[in-house]
């Protein structure tokens, strides 16, 4: 399958797209800020939460790779590390939200003595704490992603075992910090739009959607890098198969989380919880909810059910693009009903903010990716990822991959010999 697409595509005419997106989107967003400040704030938040998903998901995948001592995902780890290292830029992109917070968050302009739901949340729901939480979250994320990439690049030079141990250490500590900070971020930046509402599942909910969409993105990036010959030598069909399987798993996981949240609130039928969903069943929001049920779950679920489709690129590439659309709609379903309670609106400022961030972050990502080796050159598990060694025999279970080619045609020289 891969052999047939060995000639790299000419991507030169796409090279200007990120710049155009940044400039065009930036202009539209700026215009939006001047024309309609409130709409701009919501549009910006939506776009921001979307791209935050990507970096958070990438950071999670990198940490999961180390925690599981995985082998197959080594070639993908470098671009995931770069995606996670967009956090400093996301912190910059957070500035407009920090400035426009009083426009976005109703609770900021309420008197806690007159509002019980707000009063109960003192001192977390005060302005200083809002900024402190943001600082802590970004501090943790920047620190973790920076350390993980640092040691990964260090291993490119030395090939020693120490960086692996360091990365494992940061992942062990990091997964705790990540769980807490991502939950706080989802609560403070999204759930707090309606501060009266509460759900213990919310952090997990944002996490599930984020990782789902990141997996789709990772599949696409792998595909492009493979096609361009950058990763070709380090990949074989397993990477696509496993990424597809994980995408399938997170399709189900997201649905499980969202269904559980909805179902428990539906059954409990308590007004202090149901109002959140009642708002989201009004007007065209009801249809958005249907699109999420069928498009975020049923379509990818049924599409990915078969084993072989996970390495059919013509099929998977559109599906991965679809994850972006669905995740955007899902976040819109969370954020926008506060601004547009009557129904779904796709505002031109939404598009501007999204395009600006997409272009800017893509440019930074490409620059970073070009600066460093394209995959962890001397990772001890690389040889496994390439399929040249089966350290644990028949790692692939169930004969499920006998259909695709998982035994390399040519064995490379292995230093030191494995006889």
């Amino acid at each position: 399958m891969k052999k047939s697409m060995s000639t790299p595509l000419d991507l030169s005419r796409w090279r200007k797209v990120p710049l155009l997106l940044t400039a065009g989107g930036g202009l539209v967003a700026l215009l939006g800020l001047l024309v309609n400040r409130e709409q701009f704030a919501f549009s910006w938040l939506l776009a921001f939460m979307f791209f935050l998903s990507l970096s958070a998901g990438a950071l999670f995948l990198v940490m999961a790779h180390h925690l599981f001592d995985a082998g197959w995902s080594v070639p993908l780890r470098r671009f995931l590390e770069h995606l996670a290292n967009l956090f400093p830029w996301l912190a910059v992109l957070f500035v407009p939200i920090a400035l426009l917070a009083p426009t976005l968050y109703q609770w900021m302009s309420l008197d806690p003595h007159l509002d019980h739901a707000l009063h109960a949340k003192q001192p977390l729901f005060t302005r200083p704490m809002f900024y402190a939480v943001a600082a802590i979250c970004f501090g943790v994320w920047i620190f973790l992603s920076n350390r993980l990439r640092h040691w990964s690049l260090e291993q490119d030079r030395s090939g020693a075992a120490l960086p692996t141990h360091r990365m494992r250490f940061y992942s062990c500590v990091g997964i705790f910090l990540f769980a807490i900070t991502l939950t706080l971020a989802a609560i403070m930046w999204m759930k707090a739009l309606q501060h009266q509402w509460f759900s213990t599942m919310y952090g997990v909910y944002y996490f599930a959607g984020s990782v789902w969409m990141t997996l789709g993105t990772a599949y696409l990036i792998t595909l492009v890098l493979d096609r361009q010959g950058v990763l070709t030598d380090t990949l074989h069909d397993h990477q696509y198969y496993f990424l597809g399987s994980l995408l399938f798993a997170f399709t189900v996981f997201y649905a499980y989380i969202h269904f559980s949240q909805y179902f428990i609130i539906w059954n409990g039928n308590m007004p202090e919880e149901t109002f959140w969903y009642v708002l989201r069943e009004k007007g065209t929001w009801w249809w958005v909810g249907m699109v999420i049920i069928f498009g975020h779950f049923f379509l990818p679920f049924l599409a990915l059910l078969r084993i072989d489709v996970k390495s059919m690129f013509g099929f998977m590439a559109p599906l991965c693009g679809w994850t972006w659309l669905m995740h955007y709609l899902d976040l819109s379903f969370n954020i926008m009903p506060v601004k547009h309670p009557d129904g779904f609106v796709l505002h031109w400022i939404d598009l501007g903010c999204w395009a600006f961030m997409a272009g800017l972050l893509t440019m930074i990502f490409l620059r970073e990716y070009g600066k460093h080796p394209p995959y962890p050159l001397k990772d001890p598990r690389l040889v496994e990822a390439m399929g040249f060694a089966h350290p644990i025999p028949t790692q692939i279970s169930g004969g499920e991959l006998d259909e695709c080619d998982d035994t390399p045609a040519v064995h490379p020289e292995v230093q030191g010999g494995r006889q």
Partner: protein
Amino acid sequence: MNNAPKPYGIIAEFRTAADILHAAEKVRDAGYQKWDVFTPFPVHGMDRAMGLKNSKVGWFAFLGGVAGYTTGMLMIWFMNALDYPLVVGGKPMFSPFYAFPPSYELTILFGAFGSLFGMLFLNRLPRLYHPLLKNRRFALVTHDRFFLVIECADPKYSEAQARKLLEEAGSRHIEMVED
């Protein structure tokens, strides 16, 4: 009564997974159809070495699952909304939400039946009599030996050729099995 034993096939013993895999590739390339490989555990890559197609078990499981989900939803709708509607807890007579958990369980239950019984059906099991099971040496197949059997019913079968092929493949022990 004709009690003369009919030959069933020729059986060749191998000692390692790599040997049997390469032998299977040779037999496949020689164009035999009614032949099989017997191993103590599933050997990785053997399906390709034998030229087997993807197993059909998935369809049984899928159809079982669809049947289970439909059964669950229809059953609950019939019982709670059509045949004997009762207002309980202010909830609608029928809603896909509350009907989901039992329907989901039935999906899995029927899907599991589909996969196990589909597997048994495709393998024509249980089959308590098999000519190979009479062979004393063949009992080692569940222990640590690997066997390749070419049946006499194969259109290309000729004992001399089959024996030669299996000897070339490296078998140290070849014998005939009777039906």
